[in-house]
């Protein structure tokens, strides 16, 4: 039998980079087409985030150059704020270095591995360093070749050059050489990904040069740069006992009361007093032996009659005082049972809806601009639902856009997004797909969904999107999210219905008018024979009559709609 020490000789602490190297598939680097898309995605996301944080309307250019069989050079350039020299290795070389991974904040980045993952992927497939050219707009442009030291999980600049910057250019251009990938114009490819990104980011100008030299431009359709997201506190509705317990252990607040007010959203001093009453009431209800009476009391509590419930118990003030005491003790002394009581009471209490400042929806107006600018439909509408929470006190928000007709080819297309990031894979298992298919489209004048030129985009915005798997390409079917998506779709579909029925009515009117007009020459000829009046004149009388009749009809309709 081998000695333990001998066994551990072989045991090495695996660095994050090493882990990634071995588990690239988990992070989206799987399949030749998808790997390239993931690579571009990481670079473009970085660019968009950087521009937004600096308040610059993004101008992003992606170039894919074919160097050989399954061997490409990927260039992504932006007009962002640039990267100061000393942060270059940090940005491109360190895994899990991001600032967002640990905070309750909505983020575009998906893994916290981001662009360094792309650098790593390029390095392990082609062996080449990533070339970074950047300037913050000062007098020099830095050109650096970055590699990752897999063992140390560190970025390393292999070569560096500095150039003058007479025009004050700012931005970042990175060039990655990758092998084992493939450029294809498929629904999982770079082209489609950028198109979808452009729709969800109408403030960005995105260009793509394909390997055959074709230039594709997704122009900017909105001048408004969205504000970067901010951190958010959890909402009391739906937090789990574990959340409260863990947070209480970590907090620097002095008392439970301060902790609750400080670390949760929508909890005030007054709400804590209310919480005390609810906890006391719950404790007292649990002492009731008659199940029926107990049920009734729970029901009354649900209705907010907490004071009345308390008063029905003799000596209730004693219990209230006990609970009140709990609020004044240091939070680290909060027991699991007490945390449980707090969470249970939250369920009976009413709170304001979660704050929205942490969520960054695209907004109805910008969704419409994005869809209009890229898809050129004849009708477009968008619905942004108010924020809601799902379990864990996590606020989320759903928005949908609906585009119909125009240059859209016939057939239903669902564009899925999580925090503005297009989801290209695993559509079947995604809650958005389920919700979209569950809607009875016939009710909204869409008789045959699969033959209607219809594009539905769904963006689920949250600080924590519940993905189904590590690929982060499909959103789990959480009831609250499913319902919100359905409501949003139905709202948008109702507007489409209004548009379609108006259109049908107008088409019908045009058809009616034509029915009359086509008979005019025949009528004029016959009347001319009967009366001797010239045919031409009679025709004019009839056409004028039809014209004025339909003109007055239209006027009536307009005033009805007004």
């Amino acid at each position: 039998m081998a000695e333990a020490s001998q066994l551990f000789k072989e045991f090495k602490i695996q660095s994050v980079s090493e882990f990634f190297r071995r588990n690239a598939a988990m992070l989206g680097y799987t399949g030749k087409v998808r790997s390239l898309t993931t690579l571009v995605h990481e670079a473009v996301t970085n660019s968009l985030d950087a521009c937004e944080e600096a308040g610059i309307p993004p101008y992003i250019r992606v170039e894919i150059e074919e160097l050989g069989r399954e061997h490409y050079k990927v260039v992504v350039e932006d007009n962002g704020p640039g990267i100061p020299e000393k942060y270059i290795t940090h940005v491109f070389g360190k895994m899990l270095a991001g600032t967002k991974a640990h905070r309750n904040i909505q983020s575009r980045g998906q893994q916290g591995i981001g662009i360094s993952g792309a650098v790593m992927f390029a390095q392990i497939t082609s062996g080449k360093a990533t070339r970074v050219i950047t300037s913050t707009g000062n007098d020099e442009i830095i050109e650096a070749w970055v590699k990752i030291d897999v063992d140390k999980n560190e970025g390393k600049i292999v070569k560096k050059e500095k150039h003058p910057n007479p025009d004050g250019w700012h931005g970042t251009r990175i060039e990655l050489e990758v092998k084992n990938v493939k450029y294809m114009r498929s629904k999982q490819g770079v082209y489609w990904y950028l198109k979808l990104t452009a729709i969800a980011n109408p403030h960005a100008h995105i260009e793509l040069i394909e390997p055959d030299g074709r230039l594709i431009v997704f122009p900017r359709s909105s001048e408004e740069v969205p504000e970067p997201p901010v951190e958010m506190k959890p909402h009391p509705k739906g937090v789990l006992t574990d959340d409260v317990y863990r947070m209480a252990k970590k907090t620097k607040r002095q008392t439970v009361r301060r902790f609750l007010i400080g670390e949760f959203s929508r909890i005030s001093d007054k709400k804590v007093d209310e919480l005390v009453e609810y906890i006391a009431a719950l404790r007292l209800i649990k002492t009731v032996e008659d199940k029926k009476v107990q049920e009734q009391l729970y029901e009354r509590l649900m209705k907010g009659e907490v004071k009345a419930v308390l008063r029905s118990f003799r000596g209730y003030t004693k219990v209230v005082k006990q609970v009140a005491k709990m609020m004044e003790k240091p939070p680290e002394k909060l027991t699991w049972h007490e945390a449980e009581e707090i969470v249970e009471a939250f369920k009976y209490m009413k709170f304001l809806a979660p704050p929205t400042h942490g969520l960054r929806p695209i907004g109805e107006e910008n969704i419409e601009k994005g869809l209009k600018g890229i898809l050129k439909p004849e009708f477009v509408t968008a619905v942004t639902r108010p924020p809601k929470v799902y379990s864990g006190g996590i606020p989320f928000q759903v928005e949908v856009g609906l585009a119909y007709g125009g240059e859209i080819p016939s057939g239903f297309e669902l564009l899925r997004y999580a925090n503005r990031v297009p989801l290209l894979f695993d559509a079947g298992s995604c809650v958005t797909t389920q919700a979209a298919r569950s809607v009875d489209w016939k009710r909204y004048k869409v008789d045959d969904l699969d033959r209607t030129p219809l594009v539905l985009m769904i963006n689920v915005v949250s600080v924590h999107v519940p993905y189904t798997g590590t690929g982060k390409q499909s959103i789990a079917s959480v009831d609250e999210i499913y319902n919100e998506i359905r409501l949003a779709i139905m709202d948008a579909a109702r507007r489409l219905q209004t548009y379609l029925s108006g259109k049908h009515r107008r088409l019908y009117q045009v058809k009616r008018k034509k029915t009359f007009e086509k008979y005019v020459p025949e009528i004029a000829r016959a009347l001319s024979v009967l009366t001797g009046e010239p045919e031409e004149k009679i025709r004019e009388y009839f056409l004028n009559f039809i014209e004025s009749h339909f003109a007055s009809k239209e006027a009536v309709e307009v005033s009805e709609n007004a």
Partner: protein
Amino acid sequence: MPKRKAIHREKPKEKFSYDPKKVLSKLEEYGRSVLEAIKSGKNPYFDIPMRGLNNVYFDEKSRLIKMGDKLSRRYFLNVAHARKFMQTLLIMAYVKRLVSEGKHASLREAYYANKHTIPGTRENTFEDQRESDPIIEDLERMLGVLREEMHITADRRGYIYGDIVIRDGEDEFNASKLGSGGWAVPGTVEHIQFPEINVDYALVVETAAMADRLIEEKFPKKENALIIATQGQASRGVRRLIHRLHYEEGLPIIVFTDGDPYGWYIYSTIKQGSINLAYLSDKLATPEARFVGMTMDDIKRYGLENVTEKLKGIPPNKKGGPTGDYKRILEEMEYPWFQNREWQRQLKMALKWGVRIEQQALANKSLEFVAREYLPEKINNGDLLP
């Protein structure tokens, strides 16, 4: 020594009245009104008396089936009317040309003459004759003029034989000198005149076979009668001819049909008019016409029991009945003009015995029987049904 006859020619009640100018002025009047409406920005329309059972009634005074005053308004600016509005005007213009040029066209010719593709569409002005025929009927009712007066004719059917001089355009001839076939009645008889008539009455005969029999037996000459063969239900030409002969020439009309519901219905149409052509009863029907046979009484009187036939269909007292002949007889019993003792008795007898009898059944006696005995006897004795 001529016998004294119960039937003889009377004094005329109507005058020959055909005038093409009347038709033309009506057409122009309607055309003008449409033009006036459109000029002043109003939706032009035609008022057309409604067709169908809902708009007919039996006028007791004139004893005619007449058209009511229900109108249907056909607008230009109405999706459901526009096409028919256009068709109405097309036919009106066509009629104007026909009448002013003095030409006649058949219903089918009128259809083909006006059928063409509407420029700029794949639609035809008329898709088939079932569209143009009703428009022509509409015009008859709307203008109060006969189709024949508009120079549009139907297929000819029926013929006459007898000592009567007919003027048809430039031709003048005696209808007893045209051979045994007689003179075929044309689609329109409006322009025809009768310079000379040497008969006492007109015998309207349902079947051609019976008419031929009577001619062969020289019945017209011997009885001084005019034979009019309808060949089934009387055509409009024949009905109009009967009407004119009665009212313009004073000839009594006697009808001779099979003893079955269809024969009685032919008689009813000649006498009172029909629901379809109720608006023309004034011009087509002859309420004074009388019926010579066949009757149910004839069966007993002439011993024809073994040449009767069974009525078709299920009798009213049997399950599933009444159908077929039984049903028709019951319907006819309800007709206002059959509300008299004689007819009710005949119809009841038919129902009771469940039989019908054809004109030709009389040949059972002998070929000459109908011409020598049956008809002269009944007619001269005035043994006729009202």
